[in-house]
């Protein structure tokens, strides 16, 4: 595991000190979880749902309770023209 590569994937910026520390700590945890490799899981289905509910559907009706634009922008760090203002991404 290359902590700097993973940090980039998760959009984190690490100082040299943090990178060294996390490399070691996360490395230790990964070593600990290696124990799961020894278990025989042939034929075992993965648990994706903690409770036995599936296929919960509803009417495609958006007339209910919604967050107004104002409320959605209320916590924004930077707003312009009723939108979230961000650094330019397209040249």
């Amino acid at each position, binding site marked *: 595991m290359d902590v700097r590569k993973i940090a980039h994937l998760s959009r984190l910026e690490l100082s040299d000190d943090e990178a060294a520390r*996390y490399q070691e700590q996360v490395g230790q*945890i990964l070593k600990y979880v290696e124990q799961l490799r020894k278990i025989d899981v042939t034929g*075992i289905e993965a648990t994706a749902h903690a409770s036995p509910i599936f296929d919960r559907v509803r009417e495609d009706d958006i007339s209910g309770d919604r967050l107004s634009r104002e409320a959605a922008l209320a916590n924004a760090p930077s707003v312009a023209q009723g939108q979230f203002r961000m650094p330019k991404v397209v040249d």
Partner: protein
Amino acid sequence: MNAADLTITQLRAAYREGDLSPAEAIQSIAVAIDEKDGDIGAYLSYDIDLALADAAEADLSLPLGGIPIAVKDLINVKGHPCSCASKMLEGTYTASYEATVIRKLREAGAVPFGRTNMDEFAMGSSNENSGIKPCRNPHDLERVPGGSSGGSAASVAANTAVAAIGTDTGGSIRQPASLCGVVGLKPTYGRVSRYGLVAFASSLDQAGPMTKTVEDAALMMNAMVGADPHDSTCLPDAVPDFTSVIGRDVKGLKMGLPREYFATGLDARVKEKVDAAVAKLQSLGAELVEISLPNTEHAVATYYIIATAEASANLARFDGVRYGHRAEADDLVEQYKKSRSEGFGDEVQRRIILGTYVLSSGYYDAYYLRAQKVRTLIRQDFTNAFEKVDLIASPVSPTPAFKAGEKQSDPLSMYLADIYTISANLAGICGISVPCGTVEEGGKNLPVGLQLLGKPLAEAELLKVAHAVEVS
């Protein structure tokens, strides 16, 4: 009379007798916080004006009419801050909507009052990962209250709250309840809506009551539990009256004792208290059955893969775009990186890194998918056990409250202390911690909790048996 010293039942009686009004209750709790919370740090903030406005409208005929409830600072209460004890949201986010669990408590008459301290984004077992300020155990200010719902547990234990709400992903209600000597219940996964909770691990999180008595927990459960169209994982099952079982006997109850939970690593003094509580239940008519949960040794590893994977996805939304801390930067990726690195504490970053790794291309099968399969084995252990027994009894924590700083240098050793609580979240079952005595250390009496684990939807059974322990 200070409302903060009372239980929910006692406060309802005080309102009925006219001894106190809801407004006076709020004022007196604020006084208790001002006087006592400086040393404890259970509260991150509280808003008297909003609470008094709610109190003025209180309908005392409702089951929780006018009852102030402290709220863990990751549950959205409209108009209140929601910091998750993180610099990412501190001072920059005010809830623009309300969690279903809060709406339901309000419908029962309750008044949300106070935002309680916690481990940052619910990641921790000691409250030491709070990104804002420390929280200490009221029984010994040099020790931790437990986590991640440390503030909720400490406020109830210190009588700076009547009752509180916590959340439990790997033990975060039950363990601080045990360490602080209060009652804490983690409902079956899906019992309480997660809509409006800031998500840590979506397949594991559950909100639940943290109270001074089992009866208070039952009263809160009546209000908190129920179907919610906003949460597709919320169970549609009917809500029983959880208070109706209080006082019923435990004759003939088959109680399982998992041999793996009473083995090495358990402090002898904790074991003594847990054994004594179990013996008491036996004398009241419960039948003890030794059981095995063979995959116990894999629970912590399984949890820390699944929970961190889910957390890495859930915390991707904190990017400085729509809310929270935004760092200045010239380009988008730099803005994401700086905002997140400046906003998140060490433990949060560690877990995001671990979670991202186990989900990444080439590693997903070996780690995440495998962990999900072991999760099935762990669930199966409980299904098998519940064919032989009605309930399972165990310790909550291997030790009583430890000293602040003791486990800080080794994250893994902190994780290993979750061993007794973590499986219940993986299996989706319900669990409660009820005080069962204290252990003397350094001239202080440190609380010990008894854990009871029940089948899915069996919270009433837990409350019934916990009450029997409480009054014995």
